[in-house]
């Protein structure tokens, strides 16, 4: 009875209403603050992309895409650069993704919890934060000088592969951990082995999250410049790598792996550091193409992810 009277007292007074108004005010304040911060971020992004487009859009042409670099800005193009970026990304994905997913599955599903796995886990997290130039130095010492892989596509792909490996492992582990334990238990209870459970359930159900991690990791790799300069990217290559196929048996050729390479950010870096204004325009145009390439890569991954998610309904 006393309690009821207590509440009634508050309802009659306007104190309660005032309190609600104040809390709603705070609510609105936070919404506006969030909107403002987001607006600033978007504005900066649009300004940067707009600047790039204003500078470089006029330079975009078929000739630009299909020409080798040249000392004459009007004749220079990014053929070797974009082909190089595609090939390096291919090698990066081929090394980092299988290794990273494999390592993540091992750590999440198989490894017994011990001090050793703990040390490995901490180190993977730390490796994800190591500056990329350090990876470049490591690759220079290990891949170029020790293993004599040369200043090649292979070296570049392996370097970036090592760089994004920790990110791939961390993203995959997060995705694997999001599969409910009840589903794993259901598979085990039917008599499934660990590998059957992983292959038929854990991996398919976490594929959406894994692919998101791959997108982020490859997007990071596509813009990397420092480690590739360190391992010896060239900025002036006037010939294409060897084709990956040949007329005679076994029809595929791996000679291109050992060709000298360049990639888009290297080409841009080179042009930006030239004194002539026309080369800066070329750099802006190459920046637009690089942006388009990474957006296209993301789009492909999003499409694949959507197809995976369509088959799985939680």
């Amino acid at each position, binding site marked *: 009875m006393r309690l009821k009277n207590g509440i009634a007292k508050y309802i009659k007074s306007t104190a309660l209403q005032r309190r609600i108004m104040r809390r709603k005010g705070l609510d609105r304040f936070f919404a506006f603050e969030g909107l403002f911060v987001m607006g600033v971020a978007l504005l900066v992004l649009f300004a940067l992309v707009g600047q790039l487009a204003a500078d470089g859009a006029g330079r975009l042409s078929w000739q630009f895409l299909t020409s080798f670099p040249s000392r004459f800005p009007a004749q220079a193009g990014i053929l070797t650069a974009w082909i190089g970026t595609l090939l390096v990304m291919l090698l990066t994905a081929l090394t980092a993704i299988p290794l990273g997913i494999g390592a993540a599955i091992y750590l999440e599903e198989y490894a*017994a*919890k011990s001090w050793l796995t703990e040390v490995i886990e901490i180190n993977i997290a730390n490796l994800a934060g190591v500056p990329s130039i350090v990876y470049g130095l490591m690759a220079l010492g290990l891949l170029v000088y020790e293993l004599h892989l040369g200043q090649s596509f292979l070296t570049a792909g392996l370097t970036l592969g090592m760089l994004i490996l920790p990110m791939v492992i961390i993203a995959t582990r997060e995705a694997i951990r999001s599969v*409910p334990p*009840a*589903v*794993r*238990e*259901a*598979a*085990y*209870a*039917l*008599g*499934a*082995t660990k590998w*059957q459970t992983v292959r*038929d*359930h854990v991996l398919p*159900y976490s594929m959406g999250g894994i692919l998101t991690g791959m997108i982020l990791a490859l997007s990071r790799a596509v813009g990397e410049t420092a480690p590739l300069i360190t391992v010896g990217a060239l900025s002036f290559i006037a010939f294409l790598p060897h084709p990956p196929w040949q007329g005679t048996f076994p029809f595929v050729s791996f000679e291109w792996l050992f060709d000298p390479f360049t990639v888009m950010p290297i080409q841009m870096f080179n042009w930006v550091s030239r004194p002539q204004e026309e080369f800066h325009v070329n750099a802006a145009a190459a920046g637009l193409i690089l942006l388009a390439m990474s957006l296209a890569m993301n789009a492909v991954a999003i499409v694949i992810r959507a197809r995976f998610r369509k*088959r*799985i*309904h*939680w």
Partner: protein
Amino acid sequence: MKALDVSQTVLKAESRGLNFFYGVAQALHGLTLPVYDRCVTALIGPSGCGKTTYLRCFNRMHDLYPGNRYEGAVILYPDRVNIVGAEVDPIEVRMRIGMVFQKPNPFPKSIYENVAYGMRIRGVSSKADLDMVVERALQEAALWGEVKDRLQASAMNLSGGQQQRLCIARALATSPELLLFDEPTSALDPTATSRIEELVTELKQKVAIVIVTHNMQQAARVSDHTAFMYEGRLVEFDRTEKMFTNPSVKLTEDYVTGRFG
């Protein structure tokens, strides 16, 4: 413990002095308990008394997590093998003993794939064989009529009760010798619950069943034998009618009459 009238029943499994440890914490203390073939054995007791822990010993679910340890024996008849023995492969045990969990946990795949999965991992891949098994299991789980026109639809679109019957069908598909139910109706509404209970009563015609339940009326309705557990120990085991009408132990009487727990 008082000897039972077992003239009509055949042993399917039996735990003998079973101790179980989560790391250093002992969860089960010397459980000795028979499970009769073609009967339903209910495990009752207050939360944390070890019912589920005990149930999960039967299909070695504890082996999935590190640090767990069994002592004693769970003998499976007629071959008299100790299924918690270190030399026995838990996968083999799980292939012979099915389990239905507390919350329906279908795979996020089609209804068909859910039921077929047990046979698939046993290497069956012929469409005709799988079709046959899926239909039989769904019929045994009283779900066939509701889903036969949409076997390829996602299992996640079924209602909670249907999902649980799907999980029962999934467990039945591989013809287990013993079926474990871990509070199978605790997440379901009364209608779905009564359907599952009917199903349990039907299924005992062909398979031994152990069911953990929080609901004493449910134990009384579906089971032939009831075991009352308290703090990791068996307090009393007897025929269900006797347990609920004339238990020998005071603690059991207090629990079944709702005086505690």
